[in-house]
């Protein structure tokens, strides 16, 4: 194996670690975007945000919506909207910051040790 090929295999190992850490980060973001509210469990995603935005714009104070397990859950529109929007923005920002650290890390060691 010549030097160039050896370098390619090193790069492949680096990419393997990086891809796995990015996948774990994506799954972690999904975990953090899951919240319990009034007994229901909700995945915060654009669909939920749009539904709440619509209810708020149409001046609904309360509504019953299905959680991720299809349980009908009563919510107060305004506080729930604020909670999920704040959580969404915060977690997207946090995930973006971590994503940047993983993709700009120059070595496997750096991928595994940032923020320590």
């Amino acid at each position, binding site marked *: 194996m010549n030097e160039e090929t050896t370098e390619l295999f090193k790069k492949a190992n680096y990419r393997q*670690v990086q891809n796995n850490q990015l996948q774990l980060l994506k799954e972690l973001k999904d975990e953090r975007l*899951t919240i319990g509210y009034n007994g229901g*469990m909700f995945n915060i995603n654009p669909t939920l945000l749009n539904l709440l935005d619509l209810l708020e714009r149409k001046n609904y104070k309360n509504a019953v919506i299905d959680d991720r397990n299809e349980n009908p859950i009563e919510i107060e529109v305004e506080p729930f909207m604020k909670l999920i929007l704040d959580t969404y923005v915060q977690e997207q920002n946090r995930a973006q910051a971590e994503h940047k650290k993983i993709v700009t890390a120059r070595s496997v060691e750096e991928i*595994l040790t940032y923020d320590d």
Partner: protein
Amino acid sequence: MTTKGVLIFAKNNEQFNYIKQANVAATMAKYFLDVPVSLITLETDYKDNTSDIWDKVIYLDDVEVVNGRGVIVNGKREQITWYNLDRLLAYDLSPYDETILIDGDYLIQNSVLSNVWGSVEPMLMNTASRVPSKQQEHIYEKVITDGYPSIHWFTVCYFRKCEQTEQWFTLAKEVKANNDFYSTTFGSPYSFYRNDITAAIASHVINGYTDGWIKPLPIRQINSYAPENIIDINKGSVTINTGTIPVRLKDTNVHLLNKIEIENNYDKFMELYG
């Protein structure tokens, strides 16, 4: 006002100090979830314990020895005595209205599980899993999900005291008491008793012979199997050598089946979270 807390079963054997492992699991649970933790054990095992992490210690009178199991201890396969502390007594023994039951080798590294409190679901448990280095389930778990009730990871379970949960535990005890019959009927490939399989069968039966009665937890089930070992520990993260690649589990809970690693790194865990 409902009471809530974390519950762990632990009983030492010749190879493992399960109470020491449970001390770590409880310390991390308390750090991230900020709720009381209770231990179910035997008085003889607990007498030498020095940790003051436990809010309540519940003693069992006796314990059933189920069978020998091959596990890897410090890189070598050994046959261990496996004490089944009867996880199915959790409903009867839990001091809480709402309980998160965890294994002594389950390390909590974030607060996501707090979202389960007050759930309208009677129980929550994961039926999917992954390993640290891949999104895939371990091959053994893929086998059992092929046409049989989905394996239920009893490693972490939320339940609240109510009629539905009580009925589930009653049925699960029936499945356990007649393990040979139910294992054969539902085609379990395991020759030894496994709580995860009992949970799977009980959930399947109670739901009218259909899967899906117990809904998933908000966290993933990540199983790190032996001989994977810990290479670094920091606040909120554990880095594991998986044999193929190193994996850093940051802000992520992990079920560390190579449990001796928890004992080997006891001081570091306690220094960070104690």
